[in-house]
């Protein structure tokens, strides 16, 4: 029987669903709370031998990266890989990789001072969006409509600590009240949703956007697989804007995806795809 090591820190509906589906499919899940695990950096930990493959589901980016890296360092297989987590968890690296690969993204700049951010905003044109390089669920993502408001936001951000002193400044894309979330599992693009918010510019479902089903067409599938290939592959959620003139723009790529709302509105069993994909890697 294949044993899947589930690495997590704060389990949500998604982790429980993965456990449930894996057991239905006849696989054993070994839950491993990374907050309980001491990593001995000088020798391979015993728990690595207890599973055939690991699924990384920690909500903390740094913990996910560290524990995936550790598994890989001692010869284990883990999804997502540390490199995928790193490439997706840093917004500036994601944008850089996508852009280098010719994948359309919103215009974005990385600056390390408030002065430079204000200069870049003049080049982009207001409004601009300022994001932390690391972090999710739309937290600390701010739209600044004027130079004064941007200056105030940056002053506040810089008081929060070193991680917020790198400013990812992005053009504001005038979305049609929604964006697109496309899921990639290995080489497949099984399901997608619109994330709709007509009354607020952010379209994170964590912030109240409503999920609606979206049929994956050939263009979207091709784009999603190209993006996945660029960031290192695995299990991904790709956020895409629809620009009226430029078409699809890839905004972000998520290496630890929430999918409860997607399952709810589409009825698609994404946990099954995830489990089957993981198991297929063991059998290769």
């Amino acid at each position: 029987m294949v044993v899947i090591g589930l690495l997590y820190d704060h389990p949500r509906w998604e982790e429980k669903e993965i456990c449930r589906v894996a057991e239905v499919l006849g696989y054993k899940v070994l839950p491993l709370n990374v907050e309980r695990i001491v990593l001995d950096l000088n020798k391979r930990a015993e728990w690595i031998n207890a599973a055939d493959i690991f699924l990384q589901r920690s909500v903390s980016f740094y913990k996910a990266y560290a524990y995936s890296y550790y598994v890989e360092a001692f010869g284990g297989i883990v999804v997502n890989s540390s490199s995928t987590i790193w490439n997706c968890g840093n917004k500036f690296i994601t944008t850089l990789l996508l852009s280098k690969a010719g994948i359309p993204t919103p215009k974005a700049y990385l600056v390390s001072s408030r002065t430079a951010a204000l200069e870049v905003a003049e080049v982009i044109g207001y409004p601009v969006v300022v994001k932390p390089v690391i972090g999710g669920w739309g937290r600390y993502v701010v739209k600044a409509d004027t130079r004064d408001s941007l200056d105030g936001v940056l002053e506040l951000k810089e008081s929060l600590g070193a991680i917020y002193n790198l400013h990812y400044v992005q053009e504001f894309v005038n979305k049609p009240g929604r964006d697109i979330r496309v899921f990639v599992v290995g080489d497949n693009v099984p399901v997608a949703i619109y994330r709709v918010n007509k009354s607020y510019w952010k379209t994170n479902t964590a912030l109240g956007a409503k999920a609606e089903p979206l049929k994956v067409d050939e263009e979207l599938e091709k784009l999603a697989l190209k993006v996945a290939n660029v960031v290192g592959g695995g299990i991904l959620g790709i956020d895409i804007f629809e620009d009226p003139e430029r078409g699809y723009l890839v905004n972000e790529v998520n290496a630890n995806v929430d999918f409860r709302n997607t399952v709810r509105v589409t009825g698609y069993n994404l946990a099954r795809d995830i489990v089957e994909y993981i198991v297929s890697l063991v059998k290769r």
Partner: protein
Amino acid sequence: MGVAFVTGGCMVRTVVCPVCGGEVELMDDVMDGEIIEHDCGATLVVRIEGDNIKLEEFQGVEEDWGE
């Protein structure tokens, strides 16, 4: 740790809320590290060590969390 009992086909455990002192019911699939809401308004983290289950007050979403 509270007493285990069965209701509606689901094993439930009751534990004490560290904020209000009231009872908190946990479903049988509760996991270590899980974040739950209590009726008193507190957000709590479940900590499981062997057969012992306790709750801690949730300290908030950290800067590197989320998708």
